[in-house]
Each structure stands twice: as C-alpha cells, then as structure tokens.
C-alpha cells in the first residue's frame, strides 16, 4: 500500500545513518581479514569485540528509534488522529526492520560466504539465516519499543527484561531439557520467539493497551508451547531399541540443547550421537557411556574410555560457563584411567580445547548395558563464517556433501603402536559457538568401528563471521565391536584396509555427513605385515 511505503520511506529518510552504520559494521566484521586485522594481537580482539558490541547497539537503537518515531504507547502520537491504520503503521515498521536492517546484514553474510568460496547456494542460505536472525533480534527490540515511548523507558524496560531473563534461566533450561523436540530443533525456539514477538507487536499496535499486550504475548507463548507439546507427543519417535552400533536413529529425548538444522536437509549419511542429561557440576555422577575415544588438540593425545567389568573409568574435564545447558563433572580417577590406557599423565587443566563431557545417569546406562548404544548428540549451533587465518586451499580433493566445508586429506599414516593417524586440512564454516566434528573409521566387514573424539571449538560471539582453516590430526587407536563394550586395541593394517573414513558433522541434526573416500590410500608398510 502506498501509505505503508510512504511511511517506510519517511523513516528511511530519517534513520538511514543508523542503517548504514549497521551495514558498515557488518561489512567490517565480515571482511576485516582483508583489512589486515588478524586475531593475533589483543588489540585486534578488542577491536572485534567492540565492533560486535557496537553493531548490536546500533541495530537495537535503530529498531527502537524507528518504532518511537510513531509511538504506539503514547497519547501524543501524531499518527493516531491521521488516516493511517495501526496495521499499516506496523507494516511500515516491519518493512524498515527487514529492508534496512535484516536484509543488508543477510546480504553481507552472503557476500562474505561467497568471498570464502562457499558457492552461491550455500551463500544464499547463509544470508537467509543471518537475515532471519537479525530480523528476530530487531523485532524483539521493536516489541520493547512499542510498549515504551522514549529511549530512557525502553532502556529501563530492557534492563528489567534482562534481569528477568537471567532469573528465569534455570526454568528455561528445564524447558530445554524436558521440552518437546520441536522446541529444541532448529529454529524451534526462534520460531516461538518470533511468533510471540509478532503477536505482541500486532496487538499493541492494534489496541494500544500495554497490559493487555503483555497478557496476549504471554498467552500466545503458552498456546504455542501447548501446541508444540501436543504435536511432539504425536510425532516423537519412541526410544529405539538399541541393538547396534550403527549409527541409526537418534533418540530425541533427554537431550541438552538442540541443533539448529540447516533449512535444506542433506542426504542421510551417518548420525552419531550420545545421550546426555543435564546435571549440576557438583553432583557426583558415574561416568558412563558407550565407548568413545577422543583427543584434545594438536598434542595428539588419545584418551579412550571404556566400561570395564565391575566398574568403569571416568574421565572428563570440569568446565563451566560454556553453556549452562551442558553439564560437567570433575575428573575422577584420572590417574587410574591414564594408567589403563597407557598414556602419559596430563593435567586436565592444560587441555587446549574445551571438551564436552558426555554422561548419562546410571539407570540409563544399565538399560544400555549389553547394547552398543546409539550415540546421538545434539547441540545448538548456528552457521556463520569464521575467521580466515591463513591461505585457503584452492583445490578440493575430497568431495563434501556439506557446502561450506572443504577438506583435504593431507596424509594417512600408521601409528607405531597400532593406530591410524590422519591429517586433514579443513576449511569450514564454524558455528556460532560450537563446532562438533567426529571422525570415524567404519569397517563393515568386521562390524567394527573406531571413533575419534569430538572437537569443540569456541569462536567469536554471535554476529561475527568466522571462517576457519586448520589442520587436524586425527588418531584412531581403538576399535569396538558391535554389541561389545570392550574395546579392542589396535587397528592393524588389515583392519584398516577394509575401513572407510567417515566424517560426521554434528552441526546437522538431520544427519549430515560425508563419506570421504581416501583416494589412492595404500596401506603403508610398517615393519612387515601383521
């Protein structure tokens, strides 16, 4: 409608500097490597932190200012006595939020992705996701602005909401743990938040009654949750009987966090996950779980863990603050563990990477004892580009079913003590916070699998673009037979001959992974065949 467009253009005429500033900051955060800013020095990190914070502030200010330009909760607004309907006004404001704030950000994301050779389809997806994220953010601020009439009151309301949100964290986590699958699925919570935001915004514009708008928003939220619960009650898959190490259906219950899936599902390949349940750091837990081996960083130390008869070895690292949704437990029996696997003692605090500790309560393990469990883990991730730390490979020697990830097998070699060492050069897009990647060697003929660990890396705060280029050393040492909790030491060449290297990206809940075939892999000879 003409009225909507005219109002939008009026707002644009007034607030284009803010929109331009947000766009400039987006561009800066997306392309700063090209400007020669690395992540080496502390000043650079500060610059990026500041830029990220300022970008958020500018977006918030723009959203609040554009709504306050024609206030909805004031009896002095000029528009109320003009032939401009509240829906038209709301449409004009949403148009501004989309066109002036969300779309440029999304376009920036697309541009950055293209610049990092992510290909047009993936770049488009990146842009769309980013745009929707920004839209949700600014819509939330717009909501706040619609129930206030000055920047000061908006600021106070925001502080109040932040406090309330902080206080509500434990309850939200509970919802996160026990919530329906859609709540934890990609965009589930975002969709709910967007729906509630839009309903509250619409009601406030239409009726201009603050208390009722809040009530309506709360009601909408509860109805959405109720509907979701009903839907998931019908569609949630029952807990599968775990009989196999195959990497099959994931059990959606009892998960901590949720993975934000890409909107375009990939072909099913492999899913590996681990059932976890949230616990408090101080609780004592028996560290139980299916066999899992993991490694830390470039140090290349393998830790593996198994459940010996009559007891089990625990490991893990105490970690807090990553995400309250995750639970951590203390190292216990580390020396015993280290001795059992014959690795040098290493202080858990010196681990370079932050490892997630995956655990389940004793009764769950008892249920699974005797079974090789389905390992399913779901984590909340988002897609953003990452910092380019070096030169990027120009040729891809391995195909990738996941756009945005380039991997090249650099070398494959046998470990002296009977394992396989694979060096992979990966350029990939890393999640906002977490990036979980799992390598596995699968031997179908022998019905065995060897797993590497989860690699967790923390990246910059939301809103920044990071593209990572790095080399991973992946070691495979042990293997497990299906149906057994016992790990068999050693991966001998004959085992390896029938193995295929599987790369699993746990960023994709709808399972996404790729089979990386290792072309021309020839079993190196080490001191004669075994």
């Amino acid at each position, binding site marked *: 409608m*003409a*009225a909507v467009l*005219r109002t939008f253009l*009026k707002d644009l*005429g*007034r607030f284009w500097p803010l929109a331009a500033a947000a766009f400039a900051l987006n561009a800066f955060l997306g392309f700063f490597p090209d400007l020669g800013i690395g992540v080496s020095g502390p000043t650079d990190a500060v610059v990026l932190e500041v830029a990220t914070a300022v970008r958020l502030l500018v977006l918030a200010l723009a959203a609040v200012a554009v709504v306050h*330009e024609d*206030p909805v909760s*004031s*009896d*002095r*607004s*000029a528009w*109320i*006595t*003009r*032939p*401009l*309907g509240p829906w*038209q006004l709301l449409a004009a404001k949403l148009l501004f939020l989309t066109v002036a704030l969300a779309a440029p950000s999304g376009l920036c994301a697309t541009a950055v992705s293209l610049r990092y050779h992510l290909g047009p389809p993936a770049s488009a997806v990146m842009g769309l996701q980013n745009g929707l994220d920004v839209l949700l953010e600014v819509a939330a601020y717009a909501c706040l602005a619609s129930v206030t009439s000055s920047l000061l009151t908006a600021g106070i309301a925001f502080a109040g909401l932040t406090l309330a949100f902080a206080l509500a964290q434990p309850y939200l986590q509970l919802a996160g743990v026990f919530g329906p699958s859609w709540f934890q699925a990609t965009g589930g919570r975002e969709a709910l938040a967007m729906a509630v935001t839009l309903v509250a915004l619409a009601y406030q514009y239409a009726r*201009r*009654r603050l208390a009722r708008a809040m009530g309506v928003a709360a009601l909408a939220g509860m109805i959405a949750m109720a509907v979701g619960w009903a839907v998931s009650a019908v569609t949630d898959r029952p807990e599968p009987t775990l009989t196999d190490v195959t990497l099959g259906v994931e059990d959606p219950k009892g998960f901590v966090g949720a993975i934000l899936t890409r909107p375009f599902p990939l072909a099913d390949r492999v899913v590996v996950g681990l059932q976890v349940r949230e616990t408090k750091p101080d609780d004592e837990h028996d560290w139980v779980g299916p066999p899992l081996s993991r490694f830390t960083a470039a140090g290349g130390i393998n830790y593996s863990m198994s459940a010996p008869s009559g007891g089990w070895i625990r490991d893990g690292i105490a970690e807090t603050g990553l995400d309250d949704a995750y639970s951590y437990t203390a190292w216990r029996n580390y020396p015993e563990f280290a001795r059992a696997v014959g690795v040098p003692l290493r202080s858990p605090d010196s681990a370079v990477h932050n490892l997630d500790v995956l655990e389940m309560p004793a009764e769950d393990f008892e249920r699974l004892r005797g079974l090789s469990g389905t390992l399913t883990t779901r984590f909340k991730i988002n897609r953003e580009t990452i910092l380019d730390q070096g030169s990027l490979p120009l040729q891809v020697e391995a195909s990738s079913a996941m756009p945005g990830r380039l991997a090249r097998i650099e070398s494959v070699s046998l470990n002296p003590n009977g394992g396989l060492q694979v060096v992979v050069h990966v350029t990939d897009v890393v999640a906002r916070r977490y990036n979980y990647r799992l390598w596995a060697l699968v031997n179908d003929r022998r019905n065995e699998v060897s797993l590497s660990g989860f690699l967790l890396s923390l990246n910059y705060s939301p809103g920044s673009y990071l593209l990572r280029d790095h080399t991973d050393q992946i070691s495979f040492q042990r293997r497990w037979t299906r149906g057994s909790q016992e790990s068999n030491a050693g991966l001998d060449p004959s085992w390896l001959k029938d193995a295929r290297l599987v790369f699993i990206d746990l960023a994709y809940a709808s399972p996404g992974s790729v089979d990386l075939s290792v072309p021309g892999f020839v079993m190196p000879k080490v001191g004669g065949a075994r």
Partner: protein
Amino acid sequence: MNAIECEHLTRLFGRFPAVNDLNLTVPTGSIFALLGANGAGKTTTLKLILNLLHPTSGDVRVLGCGSTKMGKEAFLRIGYVAEDQVLHDWMTLDQMLDYYRPFYPRWDRDLERRLRTMFDLPPNRSLKKLSRGMRMKGAFLSILPFRPELLVLDEPFSGLDPQVRDEFIEGLLEIGDTDRPSTVVVSSHDITEVERLADWVGILAEGRLVTAEPMPALQGRFRRIEVVGPGAGTRIPREPGPAWRQVEAAAPNVVHFVHDRFAGEPTEREIQAAFPGTSVKASPMTLREIFLAHIRRAPPTGAH
C-alpha cells in the same frame, strides 16, 4: 446527528476521575468552545473523543461512529491540533506536507497555497528550529487543507502572539463549506479569543460539565447587577435564591451580584422588588467574567 455525543463518559487515572460521568453534545456545524480551569478535564475529554485515550466507562460517538471504532475512514474527516502533540519535527514544512497530503483524497491544494501565503512559513527549515507559533501554524497547515468535518483544537492559542492567533482563526474559518459544515471544538484558556468566534460554550469543572449551551443564551442570561440606593447593603435577602451569585455589599448603599437567569424586564422588576427605592443596573458580562462566576461560587454575604 450531532458531531460529538458523549454519554456517561468517565476516565480514571488510578483512582482520580479526570472525566467524571460527562454528558456532552456538540452540534454539527457549531464552533464549540470548551472552557475550564487547569485540571478540569478539557484535554482528557478531547483525547477521549479522538480515541487517543480509552474511556474507563461510558461512550463517545464521533461523526456517528463510536470513538474506539474510529479508523482510517473516520480520520479522513477529522483534524486535531494540540500543543502536546509530538510532530515529526525533524522534517521541514515541505516534507511534512508532502508526507501527509497523499493520505487525504480531498486535500485542496489551492487552499494549501492560500494558507501557506497567509501563514508565511519557511518551507525548508526543519520544524524543530521554528518558534512555537510557527510550529503550531505548521500543524494547522497539515490539517486545514483537507477541510475536516470535525476540527478539534486543544489550547491552540497559548503562547501565540495576537497576529498569529488572528491568522489561525482566519485559517479555521476557511475550511467550511455550505454543503458540508465543519464543526470545531476549541478548548482554550484564552477566553477572549473564543468569545467572538464560538457559537456554543461548554464549561468543565472537575471532570464534569457545568453547562453547555449556545453562546448568546449564556451571554443573555448572565448579568452583573448593581443596586444603588440608600440602605441597599442592609437589605440583602438571607436566602437570595439560586440565580443570585456572589452577592456582596460593596458599600452601605451599593450591592453587587451576578444573576444567572436574567430574562430582561421581569428579572429587573424582581430585583427591584427586593430592593425598593433603589436603582438597578444590569450589565452584560464578558465570557471571562461568566466563566469566573462559574468557577468561584462565593457564598452570599449577609448584611452588615
């Protein structure tokens, strides 16, 4: 159909009734002056009429439509100018008019041009840089050209110099049409401005309507009475009657009071009868004096 009909209109702020069971009718085509002291409820009443505020109870019908149901169509015919209304004051006059003009299909560009010439406003300076008078003129200019059937003005004259006030009134009188009469509701402290202009008067006090009637009727029934004669001061009746207000003896043989039901000769005779042997002079009162008489109800003083 009346332009505005308020029925048992009440608006509470917390527990304070700013408007208290108000029953007000504004006839179509009238220029209605709404008078009242500060805090009497004038602004609140106008905001209730225009749906800027929601009533606590009661209802309002504006141009035949319930006030809370007024939408785009209703506001094509309504104009509102108030001092506390927040304009987009970063805009220039030109920008503001360019923004509002397309909303109104009946916008009269000729009238706009005439008013622009009359108001003599700088087109390219942002509104916030203009004086208060110029800003109000600008607001007027964004309202008058679409010839609203109902024009609501909340204290439009306050702080304006006399020349600007004249220009306002001229502009206001431009919008009427013979086939579509314009109704104007003006709330003002400036009683002298509205005295000549308005043909209806309503007086608000403490959220209630004390009176609402045509201006000539109000002016006709109020008289300042001066009774001069020997011993007049001693003859003041103990119970003077409801129409006598602020009765006092200015001097032993001079009595002053206000009569609010003056009907010409019969009333004069009545007063004469109460004060035999005196001369009675009944003078018309200005609207300001009438208004003050409503606000101050001094008890009648007894004889010395």
